[in-house]
């Protein structure tokens, strides 16, 4: 049957359907549906409860902390980064835009959580799992990693009370004009992680100040 009007066609189908006697929802039937819906709701709540139960909770300050770093351990410019395995970070002295600068890198690959190793011959961090590579200042070179190495904020306290920090951006702190003997302490805060630089990021120095 060719029908010119779609509305007519739908009406025809409805008429055919109603030919199969379907009585409206009765009170008993309706109550069963409500009952079923409440069981489904309850099961949903149970599922949410199980997830809530199983999710680990953290207390403030439980994860990460402030690590002191000895000034005498600072590498010279051009030397390999100093690794601190217990804090999972590397401290690099880098030459950024011609300035000598200090940066603390989180040692975990931004790809899938393996630990890249410093390769002195190729002068880069290389990840043994999927081959991501990073420069000495943590910037991305190649591989599947989505960005450069993440960073931890550094705080340099001088003997005269001046404080240098990169708490905002985690970028290398310019230490060209600093005499190492006048540093009274260096601390690294592993409780705060700064997301690493994107692919192709230019070398940049921290704007300082937290």
């Amino acid at each position, binding site marked *: 049957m060719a029908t010119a009007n779609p509305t007519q066609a739908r009406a025809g189908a409805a008429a055919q359907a109603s030919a199969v006697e379907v009585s409206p929802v009765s009170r008993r039937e309706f109550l069963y549906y409500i009952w079923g819906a409440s069981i489904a709701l309850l099961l949903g709540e149970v599922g949410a409860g199980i*997830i809530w139960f*199983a*999710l*680990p909770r*953290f207390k403030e300050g439980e*994860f990460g902390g402030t690590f002191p770093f000895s000034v005498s351990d600072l590498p010279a410019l051009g030397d390999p980064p100093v690794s601190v*395995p*217990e804090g*999972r970070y590397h401290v690099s002295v880098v030459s950024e835009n011609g300035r000598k600068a200090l940066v603390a890198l989180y040692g975990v690959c931004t*790809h*899938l*959580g*393996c*630990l*890249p*190793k410093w*390769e*002195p*011959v*190729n002068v880069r961090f*290389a*990840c*043994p*799992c*999927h*081959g991501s*590579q990073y420069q000495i200042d943590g910037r991305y070179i*190649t*591989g*599947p990693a*989505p960005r450069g190495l993440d960073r931890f904020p550094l705080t340099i306290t001088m003997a005269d009370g001046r404080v240098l920090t990169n708490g905002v951006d985690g970028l290398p702190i310019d230490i060209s004009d600093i005499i190492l003997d006048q540093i009274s302490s260096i601390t690294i805060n592993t409780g705060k992680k700064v997301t690493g630089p994107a692919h192709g990021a230019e070398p940049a120095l921290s704007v300082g100040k937290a």
Partner: protein
Amino acid sequence: MSVLPFPSFLDDIKEKGIKKAIFEGVDNIVERVTAGMNIQDIREALRGETPTRRPNPRLQPHADGFWLHMRPSFFHKDMTGLYPTLRLGWLSTYMVAFETITGMILMVWYTPSPQVAYGNMVNMLANVPLGQLMRDLHRLGAEGMVLIVTLHMLRTFFTGSYKKPRQFTWFTGVILLFATLFLSFSGYLLPWDQLSLWAVTIGASMIEATPPEIVGTNLNLLIRGGPEMGANGLLRFYLLHVLLVPAVLFIFTGVHYYKVIVHGHSLPPKSENIGEDTAKRVPLDKRVYFIPDMLTSEVMWIAISTLVMVVLCIWFYHAPLENHADSQITPIGTTAPWYFLWIQGALKLGDKVLWGVIFPGVYLAFLAVVPYIDSTKSRRFADRRVALTVCFLLMSFTTILSYMGLSEYGVAASADTKIIHEMTKEPAYNKMGLLLPIPFDRLVPGAYTTVQFEGDAPDSAAINFNAEIEENGLRAELTSQLSKVHLASNYQTLPFVAVPDNAPELHRALEEFYELLETNHEELYNAWGVVIVTQNQEGLKRVDVLISWDEVQLDTGRVIKGEDGLPILVLDAEGNTTRRWSVGHVFVHENSAYFEN
């Protein structure tokens, strides 16, 4: 009148005599245990005779017994040969049982805690009778199960057995494949060795990459039980491995087999017309009865596969156990198990959300819905060119990705790092550094150099080498390199000698070291290697390995060659070559398990 105040066996004896009474009693018990077959029936079946009793007692265990209630009482003759099933479905089912039994045995000696799990492994290998065999069987069984399940799936694809009306059977099969892979993977973590920790760290990080971020982060926390893999993560993987995933696997094994029975085992494509499904209509002359033919055949198959596995585990295969998990060092050459290499290869291609989550997800989802996409009627090869092409393309693609997943592909390490690793690496995948298996007493202290192999006179070569490095100033540099790795100062200037005759294994290892340097002579230009064995403490020796070479220009790990075909050296401001050094060391204890005592 009864002997006792109630009817008893004694009455039977009184009535029939003791011999007949006992025989009838046993016969009766056998018939009850088998739910319908007495001794005579069993003997007739085993002799290959037709049953004499009516109704056929060989059908009774299917009708009345629990164990065979889901098994058909007869099969179609066309599917009882090796082709078309290759018995892979049956063997998959057997592997489930096999893994459950060996797994439950292993649980006796296992505690899911980072403090003790690794110790449990060592204890099982060293002190538990048959402990190593059980571990090997469970591990080999797991690998075998993945293999058999995959082959079963390929076979089902090739014979077109996933087509209507068996689409849902295939779908549940994909769920079973997924459960199998996850069981294998979760079992990986339990020994708490380096392999476990890093394979699972990668796996959990892939889950973390699930978009959107809030879902990924929380899934990751749920599965690891914390920000890093630790005690909580181990316990959770253990619970998944021994409870949740097996439960899913058992339930879906039931659903899967029920569907197989409901639709009947599909016949070879050529034995029925296109679009026909005659599996459930088995003519009388085509019937092969479960008892005794299929039953004995099935028992034979699982007996053979058990035998093969036991033989392999006794003489040819041992489950790997690496060093204790160390969350501060990712070992070089970390790879996924072979059945996940394709994901590891894909992960090297780029974005982890795309290649680590979406790609494997879409891959498995595609497999699950294949029967609903490929809805053509014919199961014959000639009519399924597109489907078979897609299948072969996918297989090739997966193989290539698996190759890319190997640590040789795309993971850069400089030649010196690789060679030092090759010399000193801790055992992994049943391989270890060349220096480790040298018997303790034949690891003779002294300073040795690969220069001794350049020419025919090892002794004079070593003496000349001493003079040479003294002259060109490399001795001082060598001493300073050794001092950096804290070798005791009295050993830093040991004169080099040729390897003595009482150290043949050391000689061989040094020679292989020399060959490795030769193979990499372009990147490691003018290289020589040094092995220094020292002993500062009773029962403990230290072996230092050092490579020295002239630095050459590299372009992302490849040697740049000049017009003369030689590598271009890196020169300093004064035009001198740059000498590079690479050092590694390993300690060997006299009770190490590296060598046979």
